[in-house]
Every structure is written in structure tokens, then in C-alpha cells.
């Protein structure tokens, strides 16, 4: 168990810059999820922490010790791979015992540790099997077991749930979180799945094009996204963005269609006429009377307790709304819930908070 500090880590492959200086401090026992679309550099960052890649510049410190020049073997970390990466020629027991044997632990202790981990993951009855005789979920557990028995300073997870079917993924997700809390091992978890990120992490790092777009707790990231990228990435269905300009001294915004929405949480700086992007989550749009924003529904997806409506505004802007119950198939009038509007700079996409 240890803290992890990533300081100014940059990485280039030839002329291609994949990481533009990442800084991140992870406290002892914390679980941080790195989330982003494919190609954002999240796996590269994880591999740098593991020692499988060398950073172009910057430092990785585990427990205050600079491990940047060290081999993976010397970092005392464990990693769970997307493909599980079990040793195909070894039994489950040997897979889990491999790292312990290398460290020269006494046989009795190896046996005990493997048994403990196997019970924790309920794979005790599989110890004599070879990986090819296991299902995907079982392999995943063995891979976890191999990490757990080592009692490492750090757990690294590289999209470990991507190869599982949807139901198993939800189940393993909960199990990983439970285990991590119980063992209190500092963990770094990489995923492209925002639901996984929200549910697993004490904190999230949303990565975008080699930069950490936002670091924060899942609720912070969800309720105060730092820019339009984070806003669109976190939450499902994705947030709607509407072009608008500030009016009434920054206390309201006029949408391109002419509708004016007032901010209930205070005026935005920049004054009259500043071009902005208004973000509103589909679930924060309510059905109202005739004076709302008119949406021509093109597709209604009934989810049982609620309905997702995809449609267009009068000026052609696409909009998605999630409304309770079974909603109309043709046209609805919508208005935002109070305090649910996000305001972003139209040019930079950065969040604009009230005040200043």
C-alpha cells in the first residue's frame, strides 16, 4: 500500500505526442479511474506507471520513491490486463503462485496466500485447471487473484472488464470495488466506459488528447464538468449543447431559436452578447406547457419507467430529452430544471461559473 505521484509525465512515439504532461497525486488506498476515448493516452499512462513504457520526460513516484528508472519487476506493483494474460501452460494455482515463487517465499506461505485469494474470489475449486478450461469471468478472477496474492503496493487495471459480457461486467465491477475497498490497495483503473468510471472511482481523471481534461470525484465531474468534452463524455445519454448568447447582464441566455433561459445560480461574467454554449443533460429537461422549447420528436425510445426522446428544435439543432413515463411521439415542449444549466465558453469550451 502506497501513494502514487505522477509528475509532468510526457510521452512521444516518434513525432507523435501522446501525453502532454500529466500530473496526478493518488493517496494511499485510493482508487482512481482514468477514463477517456480510445487513443487519448490513458493506457500509455498506465503502462508508464507499470514500467512497461518509459516516459519521454517526467517522473513516477511510488511512496515518495522515484521509480521512473526501475524495471516493472522492481516496482512492486500488480497489473490486471484486458486479455487477462494468464500463463497458458500453468494451472490456476501456478499462475497465482508464479510471482511469489520468484520472490522465493516458502512453499507453505505461497500455498496459504493462494488459498486465501482463491477463497476471496471463489475460485478455490479451479486451482488445478488450466486457463483454457475456464470461462471469461473465471479467467478474470484468476487474473485478479494473481494480483492480490502478491500484496503489491499498487494495483493497475487495464480495461479488465472490456472482454466480458454485459451482465458479468456489472457483477465483476461491483466485485472489484468491494475487493479494492476491503484490501485498501491504491489502485489505478483504466477504462473507456464512463459508467464503469463513475461507479468504481473515488476520483476520475477524464483524459482527452493526451491531457487530463478534469480530475475530480465522480459527482464533481458529473455536476461541474470542466469543459464541453468532459460534459459530453460523462453521462448517458450525452449532454445537449445549444449555441446561445448572454443577455440581461449575464443573468440569462438567449438560445439561437430565440428562447431565453434564466440562470437560477447567478449571472455569468462577460456581459451582454457574449457567445456561449449552453449544456443541458437530457434528464434535466422537463415537459412543460405550451411556452417551453418546442421539440419535434424523431425517435422515442421507451425504457419502461422513462422515455428517451431524440428530436430537433425549430432551427434544426438536435436535442435529446429523458422524460418520465411514456411520452408523446410527435412534439413536446421542454424547459430546464432550475440550476441544471451548464455554461461554456463558445470558443474554448471551458466552463463558465457564476460570479467573478
Amino acid at each position, binding site marked *: 500500500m502506497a501513494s502514487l505521484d505522477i509528475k509532468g509525465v510526457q510521452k512521444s512515439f516518434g513525432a507523435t505526442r501522446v501525453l502532454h504532461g500529466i500530473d496526478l497525486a493518488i493517496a494511499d488506498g485510493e482508487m482512481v479511474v482514468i477514463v477517456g476515448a480510445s487513443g487519448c493516452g490513458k493506457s500509455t499512462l498506465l503502462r508508464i506507471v*507499470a*514500467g*512497461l513504457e518509459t516516459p519521454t520526460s517526467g517522473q513516477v513516484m511510488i511512496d515518495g520513491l522515484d521509480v521512473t528508472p526501475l*524495471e*516493472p*519487476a522492481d*516496482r512492486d*506493483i*500488480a*497489473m490486471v*490486463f*484486458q*486479455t487477462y*494474460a*494468464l*500463463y*497458458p*501452460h500453468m494451472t490456476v494455482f501456478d499462475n497465482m503462485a*508464479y*510471482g511469489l515463487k*520468484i*520472490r522465493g517465499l516458502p512453499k507453505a506461505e505461497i500455498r496459504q496466500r493462494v488459498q486465501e485469494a482463491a477463497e476471496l474470489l471463489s475460485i478455490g475449486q479451479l486451482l488445478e485447471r*488450466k*486457463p*483454457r478450461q475456464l470461462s471469461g469471468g473465471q479467467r478474470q478472477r484468476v487474473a485478479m487473484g*494473481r494480483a492480490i496474492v*502478491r500484496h503489491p503496493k499498487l494495483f493497475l487495471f487495464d480495461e479488465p472488464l472490456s472482454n466480458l459480457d454485459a451482465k458479468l461486467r456489472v457483477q465483476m465491477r461491483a466485485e472489484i470495488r468491494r475487493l479494492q475497498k476491503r484490501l485498501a490497495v491504491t489502485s489505478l483503473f483504466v477504462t473507456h466506459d464512463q459508467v464503469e468510471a463513475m461507479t468504481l472511482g473515488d476520483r476520475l481523471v477524464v483524459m482527452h488528447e493526451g491531457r487530463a481534461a478534469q480530475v475530480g470525484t465522480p459527482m464533481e465531474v458529473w455536476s461541474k464538468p470542466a469543459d464541453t468534452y468532459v460534459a459530453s463524455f460523462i453521462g448517458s445519454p450525452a449532454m445537449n449543447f445549444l449555441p446561445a448568447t448572454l443577455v440581461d447582464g449575464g443573468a440569462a441566455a438567449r438560445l439561437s431559436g430565440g428562447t431565453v433561459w434564466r440562470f437560477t445560480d447567478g449571472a455569468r461574467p462577460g456581459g451582454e452578447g457574449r457567445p456561449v454554449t449552453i449544456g443541458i443533460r437530457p434528464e434535466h429537461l422537463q415537459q412543460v406547457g405550451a411556452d417551453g422549447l418546442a421539440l419535434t420528436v424523431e425517435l422515442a425510445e421507451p425504457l419502461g419507467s422513462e422515455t428517451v426522446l431524440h428530436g430537433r428544435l425549430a432551427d434544426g439543432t438536435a436535442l435529446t430529452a429523458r422524460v418520465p413515463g411514456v411520452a408523446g411521439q410527435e412534439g413536446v415542449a421542454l424547459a430546464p430544471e432550475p440550476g441544471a444549466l451548464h455554461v461554456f465558453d463558445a470558443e474554448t469550451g471551458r466552463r463558465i461559473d457564476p460570479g467573478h
Partner: protein
Amino acid sequence: MRKKVIFRGVALPYLLLVPQLAVTIVFFFWPAGMAVWQSTLRQDAFGLRTEFVAFENFLDLFGDALYLNAAWNTVIFSSSVAALALGAALFLAVQADKHIRGAGLYKTLLIWPYAVAPALAAVLWLFIFHPSIGLVGRAFGAIGIDWDYRVNGGQAMTMVVIAAAWKQVSYNFIFFLAGLQSIPTSVLEAAAIDGARPFRRFWTVIFPLLSPTAFFLLVVNLVYAFFDTFGVIHALTRGGPGNATETLIYKVYVDGVQNLNFGSSAAQSVILMVIVIALTAIQFRFIERRVHY
């Protein structure tokens, strides 16, 4: 998806099989049958009379010191060739599998020797090891080693082993390289994170995963050393000096073609045939079972 075609009637399927069957019958079963028949016969020195002697040719062989010598030579020769060709190929494949500059060129060059005809390979090694014109042969002489494979049996054996193994390294190299490349990188990374150093990774992860390939190659190499090295030996030493490099296959040639002792030569061929059938059977039996995943 494999497409299964179902023929109506039996005429067409048999007709389609005829070319393959004809080749097998004409070039394998017929000569093999002739060899078996001939191995039970004995001719007089002038080829005027032939008599049926049943297994006498075989019994004679097992009492013949020269034949036992050839058998022993074959054991030494084959195991040395297999060990050298496999070892060198594995080493080269591991090196070629690393991320190095010019890996493509390096791999191509390593595959070349396979395209060289056995006799040419032998001549090439002749120019290297010849005591008076060979590069290495002269160098040996210059540093005081009494090198002459034409009189020293041990040196002759060493040379044919090297020449024969060199021919086979390319073949082994291709298989080992393919085997190495089929090992997922993440498994090796997992081993590295588990604390295994490169040497240990090789012996505990890479080598076990290569063992089905290695076993297959071992059988192929033994078969090669037993049967396909005639050209190399013939061009380099002609089984000499004395009978120092006379292997079983070479003795078949000497007794059958040079000494015209057809009965004995045929009996030797039959023995070799039994050996190759046994090797192939072992291979088919174990190769399936030893695959790990």
C-alpha cells in the same frame, strides 16, 4: 466455415483421388514393396543367381561391425545436428523477435540457407574448412591446430554436422520465430510485472510455450538428419575418412550403388523405413497432446 461437398455416387470422388493415389503408389508403395521383397533375396557376385534367404540379410546386418558403426555414427550425427540446428535457430529467433533495426533484412538473410542445395552447401563449407584453401581451415593451421578432416574422423564428423545443421537452421528459425510471435506480449509483460527477469521469463514462460513447436521440430530435424543429409556427406567426405562419417543412409548408397549388394542394401532401406514410420507415429501421437492451449 468449411464447406462440405456431398457427392452423389462414388465414381467422381475416386476419380479425383486418382492422381494423388497414383503418385503415392508409383513413387512410394511400389518401391517400398520392391525393397521389402529385395531385402529377402540374395544375389551371387555376378548377378547370375538370386535366392530367397528370408531374414538372413537382416541378421547379417546386426552382426556386421561396419553396420553397427554406421548406426552409431547416425546416432551421434543426428543428435548433434538436431541439437545444433535447434539451439542455433532458437537463439537466432529470440534475437530476431526483439525490436531491432533492420529486423526484416536480418530475418530474410537467416531464411536464405534453406534455399541452398545440399551439395552447394557442402561445397561452401568445403571452402571454409579445407585445410589448404579454406578460410577457417588455414586459420586453424596458422594457430597450430592440426586440422585435416580428410584424415581425422572426429574433425570430419564435426564438419558434416556443422554443414548439415546450417542447412536446417533456417527451417527451424522460421518455426521458432512464428512460435515466439504467437506468444501474446501481455503474457510476457505480466511475467515482467510478476518479477521475472528476462532469463527467467525465457525458461519459465517462453520456452514452455514453445515446447510444442520445439518437439515438432525435433522430429523433423531427426528425420532430416537421418535421410536428407546424404548430399552433404557425399560432397564433403564420402563417408570417410575410413567409415568415420558413414551414416545409415550413406551406407545404403555405398552397399547398393557402389558395392551392388542389393539384398543387404534393401534390408538397410527397410530398417530406415521402419525408423521413419516410428518417428512419424511418435510425432502424430504426441504433438496433439503436448499443445498447451
